[in-house]
């Protein structure tokens, strides 16, 4: 019970820290996001520019930017508690929650799919490489993936774009879907989205398989020494059954924990992949918000991302004892 309470407190603390950081950081530079947004918008507009200061002041008041900083901070914390993400400054009157809602499915779709594929393939590879009965090529191919895992997603992304999109022309150079192919749900639309997601996804899969394989190899080695494996061998269970039901199943649990811990890392890498591929997800939205000093959008993204990661870790932490019979037993004892 103490563990649960501590975990919940840590969760709240993390959200508060992330919220405070994102509030303070953009304010380090003496700049007025409203003036920036309006000045950018009027770059090519006529008019003498008189009245610009008044326009900035009255527009800023709409976002509460005319109030003292501590007051802004308090109302910001209040908004967060109510999960109210305010308006976007650079895209007024769009709400930040709408911007995030538009971008999130792209990022999640790309990330969840490619991370799951890498996780499954990597884990199997890692278990197979130390499995006595696995074919020779498994042991030859594994080091290649391990070396690939040293390379950041976006660098592999650049190489893939060069060879498969630019040279071979098999895939589009970037974007989330073809122009005009609108949101209507259809087979062609789905194929189109897959077509665009393939290279960014592939760059994530290629560079993460090795990571999961390495983790799995370590666990699988220790699992093989366990009593139940010896027991299984003694019962003369089939190789296949031993591998899937005993070795894989037991070794997967620690892998799942690692998955939770790596979410932040995975997401960070994905931001850059999105930029490289002009993918319409969270990464691009964040970059845009940062370059336009769109405070509220920056807050919203950091908050949603931190919330998502912390929540995933919290849940993993809390349900882990339920999943793993060994820990459950020690916890009871």
């Amino acid at each position, binding site marked *: 019970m103490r563990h649960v309470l501590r975990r919940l407190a840590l969760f709240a603390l993390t959200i508060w820290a992330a919220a405070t950081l994102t509030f303070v950081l953009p304010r380090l530079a003496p700049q007025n996001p409203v003036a*920036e947004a309006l000045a950018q918008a009027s770059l090519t507009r006529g008019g003498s520019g008189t009245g610009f200061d008044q326009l900035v002041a009255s*527009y800023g008041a709409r976002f509460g930017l005319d109030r003292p900083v501590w007051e802004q901070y308090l109302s910001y914390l209040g908004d967060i508690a109510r999960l109210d993400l305010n308006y976007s400054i650079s895209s007024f009157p769009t709400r930040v929650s709408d911007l995030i809602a538009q971008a999130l499915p792209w990022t999640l779709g790309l990330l969840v799919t490619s991370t799951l594929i890498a996780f499954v393939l990597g884990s199997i590879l890692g278990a197979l490489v130390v499995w006595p009965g696995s074919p020779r090529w498994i042991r030859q191919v594994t080091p290649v993936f391990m070396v690939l895992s040293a390379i950041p997603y976006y660098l592999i992304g650049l190489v893939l774009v060069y060879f498969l999109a630019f040279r071979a022309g098999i895939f589009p150079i970037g974007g989330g879907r073809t122009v005009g192919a609108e949101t209507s749900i259809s087979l062609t639309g789905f194929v189109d989205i897959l077509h665009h997601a393939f290279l960014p996804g592939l760059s994530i899969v290629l560079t993460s398989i090795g990571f999961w394989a390495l983790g799995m190899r370590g666990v699988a080695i220790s699992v093989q020494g366990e009593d139940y494996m010896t027991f299984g061998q003694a019962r003369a269970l089939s190789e296949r059954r031993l591998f899937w039901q005993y070795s894989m199943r037991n070794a997967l649990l620690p892998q799942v924990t690692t998955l939770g811990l790596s979410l932040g890392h995975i997401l960070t890498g994905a931001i850059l992949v999105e930029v490289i591929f002009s993918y319409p997800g969270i990464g691009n939205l964040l970059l845009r918000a940062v370059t336009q000093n769109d405070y509220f959008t920056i807050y919203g993204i950091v908050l949603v991302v931190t919330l998502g990661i912390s929540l995933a870790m919290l849940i993993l932490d809390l349900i882990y004892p339920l999943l793993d019979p060994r820990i459950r037993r020690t916890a009871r004892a």
Partner: protein
Amino acid sequence: MPHPTSPGRIARTLRLASALALSATSAAFAQDVPREDTLILAANSNGPEFGSVGNANPYAPGNQVNTAPHLAYEGLFYFNSFTRETIPWLATDAVYNDAFTELVVTIRDGVTWSDGTAFTAGDVAFTLELLRQNGAGDANLSYAVDIANQLTAVTAEGNAVTIAFNGPAPRFLQDYLKMHFGNGLYILPRHVFETVEDVAAFTFFDAAKGWPLVTGAYDVTKWTSTEINMDRRDDWWGATTGFHALPEVARIIAVPFNNADRGAQLVQTDAADITRDLPVGLIRPLVQDNESIITFTGASEPFGNVDWWSTSLYFNSLAAPFDDARVRRAVGLAVDRAQLIDFAYENASEPSLTPYPAFGALADYIATAEPLAAERGLDRQDLDASAALMEDAGFGRNSAGFWEKEGVEVGGEIHSITAMGPLGTLVAEQLRRAGFNVSFVSAADSVARIRDGRAVMSLWGHHASIGDPYATLNSYTCAQVKPIGEPIYPFFSRWCNAEYDAIVEQIRVLSPDDTSAIMPLFRQAMSIWYDEVPEIPLAQWYHRLPMNTTYWTNWPTQDNPYIQPAFWLTSGAYLIANLEKAD
């Protein structure tokens, strides 16, 4: 292996890269309007998405109506900067009194709003009054303070709108009632806006209600972050009254331009008919390899048309050491314009010695100013003369080879927007080689630094004079200058001179058409300007738009320059009305 940058290679790649994607495109257009009746624009976007979605109020701060929905609005007049011709549209005529203190605008008969209500002089008066009163009060609408500073009253009677000014305002008609570049006011429907309490927060978009309610030929039927659809209304007043044929474009689709790479791919694969600016390096192979894609100058340099954003290196003339005209001049002498244009624009641009865009309407003035620059040696790089000036101003070279006085090195950051990156990097490098320790920076707060004077130098464009030199001259007057720390916009030199101001004031009250009276005053003002070197003019700014003739023809070109091709300008609706379907 073929030459790696050969146009054929790039084109082939472009085609391949999007071939598969195209099949999906055609499927999506199958709805009701065929592709050949649809015009697709790759329009201004924030990254892969449109900004300010659903804000069709052209006076709400932060609106991005000019993404495409502005094509539904019409102007009282359009102005062709290539030919200096005024095209009457919602209005038929506008006449000043002799003192330029009153302007009477006559509204065209038979114009109706999209809901069938008649468009009247009352709508025009209402719009101007709305801005005037807002500028005098809340001041939270675009243009409002400008209008309030000039107008005293607006009245409507019959077809006539009478606008009274608080002094001579000979350029009001040109600057606010003729649609050109970013200039020109859109007229609002009085019967919608008179009941709106907070106009600044009113977004004026609701496809179900037919908002934005406009006089133009298109309804905005869909507006999301990735696509805008506008469908033609066949009962448009222009066609029913016989004023102008119904536009041939049945549907306008705008998609996000995102970046030049994507723009080039879209137009190459016929997935867009026109896009925003492309760099020379992309547009050259595009037009040379592809007969169906043209530019304003066809398939030859400079692949585009001059914009009003001619580029200069600005100084903050209040910040030492750039408060010394000798230092500013020395920087000017360190610049090699030909080399800049060679590297930044592959020679497909033109150096500029004046702060004026090279429009036909300004040609005489530019011809007068250029010799003034040449007389002072400001038309060429001269590193020896630059060094001599610096020594004369008391500077010596330090161990790193940079100019220095009393332990303070001459240098700093040149700030600008990201689009200036290629040019800015080169300018900084030229200056470093001449002993000025500068670097180019485009950061999130660059515009803020330029505006409040923390930036000592900046690269910026002029968006002022088009038809006569007054607007640009006016940007260097003492009224525009504030101390460092106080923001100014949109002109940043913080230089002024009382003698110069007096001359500009004389030009202010002259009609923009009175060239013979303006010219001698212009010569005097520019002589002071070149003596003082408040900025270094560098190059003309070209809009290089690829225009695809596969589905649409009659694009504006140098042989047929009927309007600026840039569709995001306030003259966009006039461009659309003149496009013709390809055979």
